[in-house]
């Protein structure tokens, strides 16, 4: 096992875990903004209960988003020191902006939002959630700016073997940015919407308490999923144009790809410049899932007179479809990143020059250690998420009025209380 392969495996594992959680974060926070805004505007307690229930699931999911994101951020320095050495002047800027402008504020706001129930005025409390959502979107934007630069480096000049920033505006108008950002955001909304619809469908199948509450959430989730799945497809197919032109080796072999490979062979020496087939296979499956999820439009007419709930089987379909968006976001991410190989920055910095000069044994230990740690925490997190989703909206800990007794079961509970 060489250091390069181990470092790539570690990055793939961490990014995949990270993506499963941040897609839900971005999708759910958008829906939460809608729920809490409606609550503040109407004053109807139903919306408060929906905000607390879904807010709690959002906050639990957020935990692993931070943890895996931290590992990713450090990995650039730990495993990919060549990346910061050769292209850090350009690639580092959007990442620095993301951490300070977006993530720093997002966490500050979220801490105040979680503990601000019954303490802050309703308007301020709502503004904090809006702050969390806006900074989450800003995060997605700056991360995609950085990623788009790796796909298609622009706005730099190489001096003494190191890339220097010459035109920051070019990074923001990168042709590999816009459609991909739209695609990722729509996919996150689709994931969030499907999660909301599936959890609600489970409650409606089991005929738990709060029929009206879960019925509302099911409708919101399905409509969100339907609208966003069309956006996902649109933004997805719109990317083939720029990708085919700017990254000809990514998805297809052809004269353009051969010409680019010939150019690289003269500049960088002979080598294998075609990406692994994995990216193409992943792309095919993702598109298949995308079309399958498009069928969610067929469920919308059944919202009329609650046929969706009365017929039962559409609820089962909604529940069983839950894994699909998660599988699709992983496959999509793999297609984009594996298709970039063998480049760290496409046509500029080969991946083998970006990796740190670290002993393979150390890299292997790091891969195993962090994968086990994040994997175990991810499974634990999902177990807790599932339990809290199943427990329903009866009394979530989030937003519980102060002074209510702790839910610690070690206290004796008076009989027949």
């Amino acid at each position, binding site marked *: 096992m060489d250091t390069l392969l181990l470092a790539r495996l570690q990055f793939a594992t961490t990014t995949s875990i990270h993506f499963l959680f941040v897609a839900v974060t971005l999708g759910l926070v958008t829906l939460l903004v809608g729920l809490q805004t409606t609550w503040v505007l109407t004053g109807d307690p139903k919306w408060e209960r929906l905000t607390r229930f879904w807010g709690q699931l959002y906050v639990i999911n957020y935990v692993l988003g931070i943890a895996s994101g*931290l590992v990713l951020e450090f990995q650039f320095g730990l495993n990919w020191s060549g990346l910061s050495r050769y292209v850090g002047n350009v690639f580092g800027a959007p990442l620095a902006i993301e951490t300070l402008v977006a993530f720093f504020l997002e966490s500050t706001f979220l801490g105040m939002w979680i503990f601000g129930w019954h303490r802050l005025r309703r308007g301020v409390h709502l503004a904090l959630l809006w702050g969390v959502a806006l900074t989450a979107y800003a995060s997605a934007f700056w991360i995609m700016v950085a990623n788009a630069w790796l796909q298609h480096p622009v706005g730099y000049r190489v001096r003494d073997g190191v890339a220097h920033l010459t035109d920051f505006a070019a990074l923001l108008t990168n042709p590999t940015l816009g459609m991909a950002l739209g695609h990722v955001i729509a996919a996150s909304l689709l994931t969030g919407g499907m999660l909301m619809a599936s959890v609600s469908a489970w409650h409606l199948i089991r005929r738990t308490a709060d029929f009206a509450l879960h019925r509302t959430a099911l409708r919101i989730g399905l409509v969100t999923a339907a609208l966003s799945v069309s956006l996902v497809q649109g933004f997805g197919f719109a990317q083939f144009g720029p990708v085919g032109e700017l990254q000809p080796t990514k998805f297809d072999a052809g004269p353009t790809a051969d010409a680019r490979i010939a150019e690289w062979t003269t500049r960088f020496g002979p080598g294998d410049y075609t990406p692994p087939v994995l990216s193409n296979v992943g792309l095919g499956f993702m598109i298949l899932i995308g079309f399958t999820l498009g069928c969610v439009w067929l469920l919308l007419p059944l919202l009329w007179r609650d046929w969706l709930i009365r017929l039962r089987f559409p609820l089962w379909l909604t529940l069983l479809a839950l894994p699909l968006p998660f599988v699709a976001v992983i496959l999509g991410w793999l297609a984009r990143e594996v298709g970039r190989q063998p480049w760290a920055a496409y046509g500029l910095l080969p991946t083998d020059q970006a990796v740190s000069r670290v002993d393979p044994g150390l890299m292997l230990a790091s891969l195993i250690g962090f994968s086990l740690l994040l994997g175990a925490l991810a499974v634990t997190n999902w177990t807790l998420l599932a339990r809290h989703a199943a427990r329903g909206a009866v009394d979530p800990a989030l937003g519980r009025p102060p002074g209510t007794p*702790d839910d610690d*079961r070690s206290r004796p509970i008076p009989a027949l209380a």
Partner: protein
Amino acid sequence: MPLLWYALLGLFFAGYLVLAGYDYGVGLLLARRDTPAAHRAGLTALGPFFLGNEVWLVATVGILFGAFPTLEGELLSGHYPAVAGALAGVILVTVGVQLRSRPSGPAARRGWDRVIVAGSALAAFGWGALLAGLLQGLPIDAAGHVAGQTHLATPFVAATGLALLALAAAHGATFLTLRLPAADAPATARLARRLLVGALAAVATATALGLLSDRVRAATRQPLPAVLLVVALVGALLAARAALRRGRPGVALAATGAALALPVALVGAARWPAVLVSTVDPAATVTVTDAAASGSTLRLLGWLLLPLLPALLGFQAMSWWVFRGRTDGRAPVYW
């Protein structure tokens, strides 16, 4: 310009150690055999500040990557075990604190408490080891790469890791003295004063080992500021102890906070103008100017980020102001 960014990098890392320092201190104190209610009270005291504290680390690494890309790669990969250990610790603490009270069974909560204790210890020790690694220099070859990781295996690194752990524990107990209901204050103040003695001993050991180490002496470019900062550190710890005895926990927390910020200033000042000192090839030593990003990048980041800095710090200050004071029966409980 590089100097300004170097100061900002130091400010954010010091801010992280001061704020997350009491997170880890409170985390370490969960190791005590206490009632579940006492454990929950400690976490409730952290409550609204916890997420805002931890994120200072993310910002630090962001500045490191944006403004000092060359330094980022060699600094982190050159101290791989220390950084990876600290990172694993940080993850265990953030996940542990946030998920700890989601299961309602006492056994599960005890389990998560152990996770938080282990994570806090790893994080504090790891960051201490990283600071010590910087102070003693590392084997950077002529090509600018660090060879191997055995350079970290010294008594000075171990002692500094333990010293930071002891500082965090004392800082955490001081924070609880200020924040828990007034009835608990005398007991936590006594604990904090005992822990401060431990911290003084740990700092003295690390200092002695540092003075005895050839590598630390060779890597130190500015001996006078270094000695003065160590004296200031000891002074801060003594001041914290005195303030606790007089029943002034606010002053004591400021002093223990200073004690956690001073090691960062010490590491920055002692080696100035170098940021990475090579122990094998003097020509391979990296200075602040060498390590900084090119002028165009720093100008861009300066225009974009410096005007926003007051807003960033302002929202943090808002969270401290809104949730100021001792926790009582009306405090929101979530962690």
